[in-house]
């Protein structure tokens, strides 16, 4: 009898406890996984160097009168130190990415190459100007470089003495503006852009293959800015200075099968 009373008392005790405290507790456990989503990004650097990627096609040790040739330099590019080389069909000597980046670091330094040569230009003057794009983002991106040349000075600046890189246009770079220029008697570009009060001709250079993170474009789309040696004082009347602008665009490669579609989307989004 005593055991039954004890059991009943225990049950009654527990019931009372439950009624007074609410829900019964259960043995539990929890495990978790933290999911980190890294958002991709598209970022580029646009650098300028005096070094034409293949030094105007002039071999180490040779000399040239080409305005695109940089004297006193030895090209040390190899497949190992030029990551994007695999994307180019160029098989000759070329400057490595490191050589070009090192030159770009001092290109606009005080008393450097650009400051010395882009000041007090006269007919026949030429300034080597090679733009390269580095993918500093996390995602592969299609790349486009645009050169803006003042429209009113086109005849004395660009129509001959200043040069885009023709070899690039045969090796993975396309330009609608150059195609138009060649088909329309070299009459500038069919695309213009106004920056401030100045109207510019726009020459576009689109790289066929995406640029991987960390990589640099192999080809410089442009080579130099020069003044025609036949330019007269009349041609340059009232001109103390002029601007040439380079712009580089990048768009994620994911979602596109080719550069043309990618930049159609880029332009639609802009």
């Amino acid at each position, binding site marked *: 009898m005593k055991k039954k009373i004890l059991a009943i008392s225990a049950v009654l005790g527990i019931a009372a406890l439950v009624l007074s405290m609410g829900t019964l507790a259960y043995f539990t456990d929890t495990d978790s996984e933290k999911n980190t989503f890294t958002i991709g990004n598209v970022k580029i650097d646009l650098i300028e160097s005096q070094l034409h990627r293949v030094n105007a096609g002039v071999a180490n040790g040779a000399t040239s009168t080409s305005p695109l040739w940089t004297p006193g330099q030895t090209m040390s590019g190899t497949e190992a130190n030029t990551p994007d080389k695999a994307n180019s069909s160029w098989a000759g000597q070329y400057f490595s990415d490191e050589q070009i980046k090192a030159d770009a670091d001092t290109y606009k330094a005080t008393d450097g190459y650009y400051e010395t040569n882009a000041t007090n230009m006269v007919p026949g003057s030429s300034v080597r100007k090679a733009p390269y794009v580095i993918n500093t983002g996390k995602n592969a991106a299609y790349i486009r470089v645009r050169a803006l040349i003042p429209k009113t000075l086109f005849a004395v600046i660009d129509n001959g003495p200043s040069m885009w890189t023709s070899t690039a246009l045969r090796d993975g770079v396309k330009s609608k503006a150059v195609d138009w220029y060649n088909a329309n008697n070299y009459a500038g570009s069919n695309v213009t852009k106004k920056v401030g009060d100045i109207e510019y001709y726009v020459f576009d250079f689109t790289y066929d293959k995406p640029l991987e993170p960390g990589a640099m474009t192999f080809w410089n789309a442009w080579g130099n800015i020069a003044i025609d040696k036949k330019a007269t004082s009349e041609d340059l009347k009232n001109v103390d200075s002029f601007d040439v602008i380079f712009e*580089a665009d990048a768009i994620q490669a994911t979602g596109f099968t080719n550069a043309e579609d990618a930049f159609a989307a880029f332009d639609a989004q802009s």
Partner: protein
Amino acid sequence: MKGRIFIVSLVASILTIVGSGMTLSYFTDTKKVENKFTLGQVKVELYESRLARGDNTDAQIIADAATYQDWLNGVIAMPGQTYAKNTYVKNTGNVDAYVRIRYLMPATIWGNYGADHTVFNVIRNEAAISSGEWNAPSLVGSGDVYLTNDFGQRIRYNEYQMIRKVPLAPGAMSTQPALSSVKIVPQLKQEQIDEYISQNLLAKDGTFKIYVFADAIQTAGFNDAKSAFENMAPTYD
């Protein structure tokens, strides 16, 4: 179970976004570099002065040059007299330039003393040549230039040049003047003046003009001054 619920929620969210008509955007970037190029200026000033270089400074010569034309306008030239005509060139541009002096003299009436019809001679500065600063005078092209004077007379001129051998730096002035003076021939007679006027060798008022021009051309692109000026046609404005 928790993982599966999460995936379903995510897909539902995406479908909602797409279904609402919004366009997918793409990650992009654009960078720009602006480059300014400045042009050099080739500019030159011609100074005519009564002062030979000697110990005279550029400033003194330039100050005298400011009154030279007024002085010359008051000169009544007489046979045997010499009148100063020291011609200097100053580079007032911002780049090195080759410079030259061109001078046009009415043909026939200039020359060595004693020759027929000679009225005057332009005297070059021998020190300019012996010092090596200037080349000796030479004809420009065929040497003949026709200019019409205020009386409508078409006068034939002989054109000579003296080229400075070395470039003139910005701000610098030629050390020696290329020309030094004009001399009226001592043998000139009054009665010859009317004859020369009737032959269009002198203007109707008995005057003659000597034109002097200073030219400058950039040094860049040329090996020497002579080849530089072969690329610069003379003008007569």
